[in-house]
């Protein structure tokens, strides 16, 4: 790839199963070293796109490119839907098979990988007897064997308890920060994704509707401040006279100030004018709000 800062690029990707088109003209770019969050409703096409990225399914149209200097086995690690592990083998045996799969000789890094995911004490327990969280961690361990440059994780925290979610989140952050792995991750749990990803791709109806960085999302909507006051209309008029962008239409009965402004002096003057302000709070745009604004639906804030 010409631009060495790009790790992965999908151009014009479409996928059809018979007459049913599930992905249409997907264009997506993942930069090296970032954590890319793929966000979408159920059935939007996230998993299908990840299957195409990993080679599990061929695209009907379009191309995908990886920014590897030289391809080797295992430069892409993945966990798509369910962990790909032999249930009749132990964690160690599964990793040994994965090493062989990649043409590597199991060495001390195997124990290090088990420790990294917290499965170094499982002994002779077969993977079929593992809890869901343990299987997910083993799946991630399998994905990171051979130190892949890119990791593709589809819903890795599904079904996990809160501690399990924290563990996986920390694991992914460490992989990105300590091993400089580029990560593409999808999840329904937007709050968790917002703590992880540095860039996002929003997919709906088989199309990428928007790509944005975490910074862009945070600053996507202008800042708003909400004031509760008995004489909301009069207060709004007063604030407008002081040069602030204030109105009562957005939140009837309350005053909304648009933009990031320092209004401390204005509020002191308003109090002197007899206005009693009962409450002040910021209205912030989070990932959920951004997602809903793009694809529709309701927030649960």
């Amino acid at each position, binding site marked *: 790839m010409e631009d060495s800062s790009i790790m992965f690029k999908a151009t014009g990707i479409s996928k059809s199963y018979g007459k049913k088109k599930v992905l249409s003209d997907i264009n997506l770019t993942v930069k090296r070293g970032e954590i890319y969050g793929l966000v979408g409703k159920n059935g939007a096409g996230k998993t299908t796109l990840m299957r195409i990225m990993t*080679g*599990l399914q061929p695209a009907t149209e379009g191309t995908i490119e990886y920014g590897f200097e030289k391809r080797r086995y295992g430069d892409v690690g993945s966990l798509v*839907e*369910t962990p*790909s592990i032999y249930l009749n083998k132990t964690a160690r045996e599964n990793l040994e098979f994965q090493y062989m*799969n990649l043409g590597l000789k199991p060495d001390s890094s195997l124990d290090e990988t088990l420790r990294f995911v917290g499965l170094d004490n499982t002994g002779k327990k077969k993977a079929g007897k593992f809890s869901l969280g343990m299987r997910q961690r083993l799946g991630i361990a*399998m994905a990171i064997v051979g130190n892949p440059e890119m990791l593709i994780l589809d819903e890795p925290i599904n079904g996990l308890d809160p501690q399990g979610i924290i563990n996986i989140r920390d694991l992914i952050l460490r992989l990105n920060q300590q091993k400089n792995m580029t990560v593409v991750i999808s999840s329904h749990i937007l709050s968790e994704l917002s703590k992880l990803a540095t860039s996002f791709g929003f997919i709906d109806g088989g199309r990428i509707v928007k790509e944005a960085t975490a910074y862009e999302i945070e600053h996507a909507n202008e800042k708003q401040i909400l004031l509760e006051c008995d004489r909301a209309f009069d207060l709004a008029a007063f604030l407008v006279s002081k040069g602030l962008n204030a109105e009562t239409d957005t939140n009837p009965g309350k005053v909304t100030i648009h933009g990031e402004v320092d209004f401390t002096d204005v509020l002191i003057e308003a109090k002197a004018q007899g206005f009693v302000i009962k409450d002040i709070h910021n209205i912030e745009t989070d990932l959920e709000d951004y997602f809903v604004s793009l694809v529709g639906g309701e927030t649960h804030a």
Partner: protein
Amino acid sequence: MPELLKFEYKRILSSKIIWFMLAYAFLCPVVAVVSLAAVLDIILDVDIKELLDELNASNFKYFTWMIISYFYVRLPLVLGLFSGLFIGRDYSDGFIRNKITAGHSRAQIYFSTLITQLTINVVMAVLYILGGLIALACSPFEVNLNNGEMLLRAFTLMLALAVFTTMFTAIALNIKAKALVVVISALFVMASGPVSGVIGNYAYSSNLIDNYIEACEEKVEEIEAMSFDTEYDYYYYDYDYVVPERKDYINFAWYVMHPLYLVTNAGIEADLIPSTSTVSLITEEGLFEYPAKVSRSSFATSIFAMFSGNNSPLDYSEIEDVKGMQVRISSLIPVYMIKSVIWCAVFTGAGYILFRKKNIN
């Protein structure tokens, strides 16, 4: 691909099932030899030493061939079950996704799987043959490989067995449901025996039928030419000989079955593998000879022939003398080898073409 081959062999060797399968392959002929000796000695109270004195070299060859050739009948079901379960686990546990994501091509995955399955095929067949030879050598019965010619026949059967393996591999790599693969493989193997038995009855060619009818016509003329008061009249008088008609044998069934016989390996059991009736060795009719030729006479002497009203005017030796009635096994061997190689290529090609574009979930 070397990585995948190493991977597959390691996985096979770490599987407990494979050791049972290999033990089964080795012990089957051993049990057959021990059982036969026990049946003769204990149940039939035959003096084996006396029996052995009566046997000639051809009898011994027949016996050796009967014991070692049966792997073609015994192993397909085992191989089908193994392929279904072993390859199926890659799908059910999802490990096949690791192979694809790692960067191995679909061709590498397909052919590494096929090569390892064929290895199992060969190892099991060789173990079966070895088990039979060792058991025979340790038993009162001799080993006689007919100067190595028997090994060529065994190799032909091993190639034919490989056709099963390529087919099972193609099915297992393209159908995700492990249980379905096992069922399909088992049904195929169980049906192939009876189907082969039917198809084998139509091995005769149209030229052979024409020769046979001509021989029957000549024989009937000969019978009718005999004067009534010769010594033969009482023998033939009570039989109503009818020269068969061509349509009795070259009929719709023949037009369907004979091409199948020609194109597939369906006739290989009838042509190459001896009868399973081991105790016939000691029948009063005589002891079986190691066959150099295969007779196509079943159409003339079968129950079918009787029901169609065709009591053959020819006696058994006259039937066998009809031109084309006996086919040399040495001429059949290269034909079966070529057919096996072609069918292996067909199943492999078809299986790979489907697998190449398969959506893996």
